[in-house]
């Protein structure tokens, strides 16, 4: 089963005729994803890859194809509009891959979405995948994934792939993998995803990849302590990053003690999570915990 995506997911790609949009739409289709529509204003009526109809608006695409997931690749200045358009058209699940979306626009967008039955993943995220359903809504390389019973959640893209690759290397499959994005304001938090994994009968173990900066890992730790009965393996990266430096778009700004790796690791340990000692040990730690579970 997994979370967010399943066999019923019908994917719409906003920005499907762009460079990245077309590349990843193709990659998703090659993986097995049911891409039912594309949207590029002014390109309505075209066919993408000779099979996917392109529409001028999300509302048209939803009306014609019953798309229920949107994957957004439009350039940053247009991403807030694309998210709002998808939400307004009633798309219940949106993943915005776009990096560099203005933060104050996002402050308004998340409030607009709060009024609607919409879940937004991202922006500035790798998206999500359900290997069992062969459904890939994002930019992750599909072939590193293996269907299974471990749920992965992370802020960033390539580090999620690293985690998945280590799991798959040891034959440990994934129920779902979600990268929630590294921007200051994102639609879905660690806590939201943890709750989904807790409720998913096909997830036995959660691999949680956090970073320095902010306090989202502490909130996740509080959630794990209070609500999550399944075992959680946690890696926090950035322990050796120098203080006071901004580490890329992930927004990993070390602002106070609670933003530091040690504080996050301590919170996770206190919550009963299994700590993954270094980024090289993700697979080994998960394997060990699964072994203990029998």
């Amino acid at each position, binding site marked *: 089963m997994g979370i967010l995506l399943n066999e019923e997911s019908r994917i719409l790609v906003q920005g499907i005729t762009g460079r990245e949009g077309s590349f990843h739409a193709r990659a998703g289709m090659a993986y097995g994803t049911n891409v039912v529509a594309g949207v590029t204003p002014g390109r309505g009526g075209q066919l993408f890859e000779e099979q996917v109809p392109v529409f001028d608006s999300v509302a048209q695409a939803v009306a014609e194809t019953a798309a229920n997931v949107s994957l957004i690749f439009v350039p940053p200045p247009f991403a807030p509009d694309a998210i709002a358009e998808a939400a307004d058209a009633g798309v219940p699940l949106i993943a915005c891959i776009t990096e560099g979306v*203005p933060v104050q626009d996002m*402050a308004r967008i998340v409030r607009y979405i709060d009024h609607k039955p919409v879940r937004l993943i991202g922006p500035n995220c790798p998206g999500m995948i359900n290997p069992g359903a062969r459904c890939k809504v994002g930019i992750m390389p599909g072939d*590193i994934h293996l269907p299974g019973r471990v749920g992965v959640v992370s802020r*960033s*893209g390539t580090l999620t792939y690293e985690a998945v690759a280590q799991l798959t290397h040891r034959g440990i499959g994934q129920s779902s993998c979600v990268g929630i994005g590294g921007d200051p304001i994102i639609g879905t938090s660690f806590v939201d995803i943890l709750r989904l994994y807790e409720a998913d009968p096909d997830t036995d173990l959660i691999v949680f990849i956090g970073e320095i900066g902010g*306090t989202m890992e502490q909130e996740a730790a509080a959630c794990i302590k209070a609500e999550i009965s399944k075992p959680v393996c946690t890696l926090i990266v*950035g322990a050796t990053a120098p203080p006071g430096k901004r*580490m890329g*778009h992930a927004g990993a700004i070390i*602002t106070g003690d609670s933003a530091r790796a040690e504080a996050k690791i301590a919170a996770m340990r206190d919550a009963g999570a299994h700590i993954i000692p270094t980024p090289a040990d993700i697979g080994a730690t998960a394997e060990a915990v699964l072994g203990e579970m029998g």
Partner: protein
Amino acid sequence: MKLHEYQAKEIFACYGIPVPRGSVAATAGEARQAAADLGGQAVVKAQVHAGGRGKAGGIKVVRSPEEAEQTAREFLGQNLVTHQTDARGVPVNSVLVEELADIRRELYVALTIDRGFRGPVLLVSAAGGMDIEEVAATNPQDIHTEPIEPVLGLMPYQTRRLAARLNLEPAQARPAIQVLNALYRIFTENDCSLVEINPLIITGDDRVVALDAKLDLEDDSLFRHADLGELRDRSQEDALEAEAADQDIAYVNLEGSVGCLVNGAGLAMATLDVTNAAGAAPANFLDVGGGADEEKVASAVSIILSDPKVNRVLVNIFGGILRCDIAARGIVLAFERQGATLPLIVRMLGTNVVEGKEILQASSLNVTFADTLTEAAAAIRQAGG
């Protein structure tokens, strides 16, 4: 993107926030004139993109135009080292010459984005003029915050509450609240990531004046503020970091010797951790980004190679948006362009990884491949020999 104090104060003045009289000077003569215009007594402030100027000697009170000229001469062309800069410091290319202030109280005021609230928050403290991070660490109850709902904006009940928390008398509260409202407009209309006044002073005659001014613009919104983008002062930035930023590469210069080329901020941080765990020290953090093409990868590698500290290069690429073959071509291009022979440890996974490895293998580069992070760590140790 950071602005200088004098630039931020010009914006403040446009929005009606009182600032001290004064003018910016690029030469000692201009500073002399500026002080003369103010009646002789003045404060001369080095204009650098770094906090902690006061403790570092970058702010001096002068009693005459001659003294202002002398102080400006000492500042201009020198590097100022503060606790927020590295050991080299940042160059002083201009000074702000301002009237002396009659300070009764010093407050702290700032606006920034709160990730938890997912929107702007206004912070104030009665402990102005101090290192606010230290106040936050030691006396968090002395910092008062108001989250601002975008649909409402900053509301009067919030500014009243902050004025009360600052124990402002009624005659002071009104102008202080006007400053807070103006600050919120500055923050939203210019897409700032931070606006800060430390200290916001109350004068002997109950005026409220921004004695200092800090304004950081959000890089991702600069496309709609072309006029503000022109205020960028590249002299204040690390040369390599600025070059990287121009190409939209996230790069931070560090102290070690292992040059790191990574895609993704999270994996880049993980790579630092792995490098450190291997007993080596990274020379940089570098996230080449998702949408990189061959040329951008080559630029990133060139930046790494142009750092004299670097004695080996670690590539850790997980192909997604960035395909491994593209990365490989960019790496080869940069090494060949510069004729570099440094040892290269390559760990690649994901999209088009086979093609990527083939390209590197077919090149003249001194490559060691690693399949896992564990192998990469071993190779770093080996190459560091």
